[in-house]
């Protein structure tokens, strides 16, 4: 199925090869999912993520693949995990209130190691909050939302082009590491329309999960080679194994034995942490001679790019480190960005969810200033430049 899927998705990408298009962030994310081989979608309507669900409702039937609007977000992510275990590349899309409901089964996907992509287009919260306004308040929720200690992989786009690229990356990462991946966009980027040229089919790397190659009798579902990432058999292919949200042994059966529980958690974290360098994506703008560095992500990184341009026109040597990966937190890149600078400013649409991480990493060496905004609108470049007086 995987091979056929990749072909179908490839066709979608091919027909649009090299052609400039005006796309909305949500559309580009959907196209990225299809290009990466997404062949199952379950979702529930919510502003500002509904465009993805609607897009998938148009495209999935064309490809003969399942689309279903479930009764709520809990059911949507549940269906995705089920489909993933049965061999599909599954995705769901939601916003804050729905993302809160999904935390339960997100933890399930994490513990059974079901690859899938969860889109959260951030709007103002908590609760119903500001449904049609931009915010970045779910950054720590994406990291810690589901209970129990667990690793998290979270990508965050700042442009329509990045919506496509990071969605492909999200699926590939989910498949490679056998884990749910969170695609954390925001209302501005999701609704923004920009001209993009999608990459040609051949330029896209599409990764499929590793499936068992041994006969069913030899298959030990959670036993791994050196990679720490167990091979995943599709349900219904003769590998009659057990899947449970309880902590389980190598055979997949529940265990409470300390000598089995401890290695289980070690593997769950280890399979991600040993590949941190592949996962921590950042971009730099005018960093070489920057005296003051901006550290930002999502739509706010766009404000920062403008602030860098305008600041330099006025003689302020600004640079930007844009985080495309929020979790695992790109510690090395942030450390390097902070080293030897006069100060760092972290603008974000929350009360400091990433700035606290920057401060943690900085360890008191550079002046790190939080710049929070919580009024449902983007931070403007002038607002960032207005903070420069405090730095200089």
């Amino acid at each position: 199925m995987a091979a056929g899927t990749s072909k179908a998705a490839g066709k979608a990408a091919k027909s649009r090869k090299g052609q400039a298009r005006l796309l909305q962030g949500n559309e580009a994310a959907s196209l990225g999912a299809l290009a990466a081989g997404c062949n199952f979608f379950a979702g529930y309507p919510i502003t500002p993520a509904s465009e993805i669900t609607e897009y998938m409702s148009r495209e999935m039937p064309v490809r003969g693949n399942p689309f279903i609007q479930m009764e709520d977000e809990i059911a949507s992510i549940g269906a995705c995990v089920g489909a993933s275990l049965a061999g599909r590349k599954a995705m769901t899309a939601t916003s804050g209130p729905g993302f809160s409901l999904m935390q339960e089964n997100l933890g399930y996907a994490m513990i059974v190691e079901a690859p899938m992509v969860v889109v959260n287009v951030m709007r103002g919260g908590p609760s119903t909050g500001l449904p049609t306004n931009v915010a970045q308040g779910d950054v720590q929720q994406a990291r810690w939302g589901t209970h129990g200690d667990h690793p998290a992989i979270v990508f965050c786009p700042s442009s329509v082009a990045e919506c496509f690229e990071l969605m492909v990356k999200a699926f590939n990462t989910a498949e490679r590491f056998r884990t749910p991946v969170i695609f954390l966009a925001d209302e501005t980027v999701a609704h923004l329309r920009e001209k993009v040229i999608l990459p040609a089919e051949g330029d896209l790397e599409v990764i499929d999960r590793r499936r068992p190659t041994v006969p069913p009798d030899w298959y030990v579902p959670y036993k791994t080679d050196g990679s720490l990432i167990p091979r995943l058999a599709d349900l219904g292919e003769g590998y009659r194994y057990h899947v449970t949200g309880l902590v389980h042994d190598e055979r997949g059966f529940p265990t409470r034995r300390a000598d089995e529980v401890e290695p289980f958690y070690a593997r769950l974290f280890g399979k991600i942490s040993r590949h941190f360098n592949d996962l921590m994506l950042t971009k730099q703008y005018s960093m070489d001679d920057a005296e003051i560095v901006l550290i930002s992500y999502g739509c706010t990184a766009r404000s920062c790019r403008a602030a860098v341009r305008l600041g330099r026109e006025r003689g302020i040597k600004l640079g930007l480190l844009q985080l495309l990966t929020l979790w695992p937190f790109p510690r090395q890149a942030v450390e390097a960005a902070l080293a030897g600078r006069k100060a760092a400013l972290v603008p974000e649409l929350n009360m400091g969810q990433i700035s606290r991480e920057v401060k943690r990493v900085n360890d008191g060496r550079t002046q790190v200033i939080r710049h929070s905004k919580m009024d449902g609108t983007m931070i403007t470049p002038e607002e960032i430049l207005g903070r420069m007086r405090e730095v200089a």
Partner: protein
Amino acid sequence: MTAVHRSVVYDWLRHDKKFPHVWCPGCGLGILLGSLVRSLAQGGYDKNQVVLVSGIGCSGRLPVYVDVGSVHTTHGRALTFATGIKLAKPELKVIVVMGDGDATAIGGNHLIHAARRNLDLTAIIVNNLTYGMTGGQYSPTTPLGAKATTAPYGHSEPSFDISALTVTAGASFVARSTVYHVTQLDQMLSQAIAKKGFGVVEVLSPCHTNYGRQNRLGSQVEMMKSYKKQAVRMDRWDKLGSAEREGRFAIGVLADHERPTFWETYQGSVDRAQAIRKEG
């Protein structure tokens, strides 16, 4: 007990999972497990094409003993996972085992929508009138006035009739049986599993440890025997007056009709989508 040879048990249960099972002596879940594997064997299903899905609670531990693909999911959500599995691979026989709290409290919304959608799934709902695993708190099926660890002075809510609920919600097949009426239970399970569309079997099963003792219902054996007194076959049930129905319940097939399944109607969308796309 039944005509099926004991080797069925050997063929369909997992050998690498340690027995004895987790359930209390006198629990009905072991009987249901036997009934389920007999029904699967009699139906001639391929073990590789069957997936058992469960939620959380005592019933949630049932799939692990069966030698098929088994998925023990989150509390109340088993049907959502089963929906994903079935849509991903429509050729699979997907059977969901839930408890009364699992299916009708936390999972109540999923249950009615699964019935409405009529996806080709089988839902086995084990009704023991309580939350057995967590110590005997009241569930949506606990009778008015009954004692529970969260209703020490008697339960103050009326209860759900699971079968009636799922009939109303649109399930293609709904039956009720008990772990006392094993031959009938085998038949009901066989029919539900074979049925195209959403099939429900409500299985009454005693929880002596956490329900019977609180409500002074006697020994495990006495609780089991009480089903014999309370259960009335459908053909006789129809003839009973309301006074005679007091304290009793009907067993047998409550609904059995043909409706298009979700997958069938979805294929219509697929055809229309592909035709429109071809036209450009």
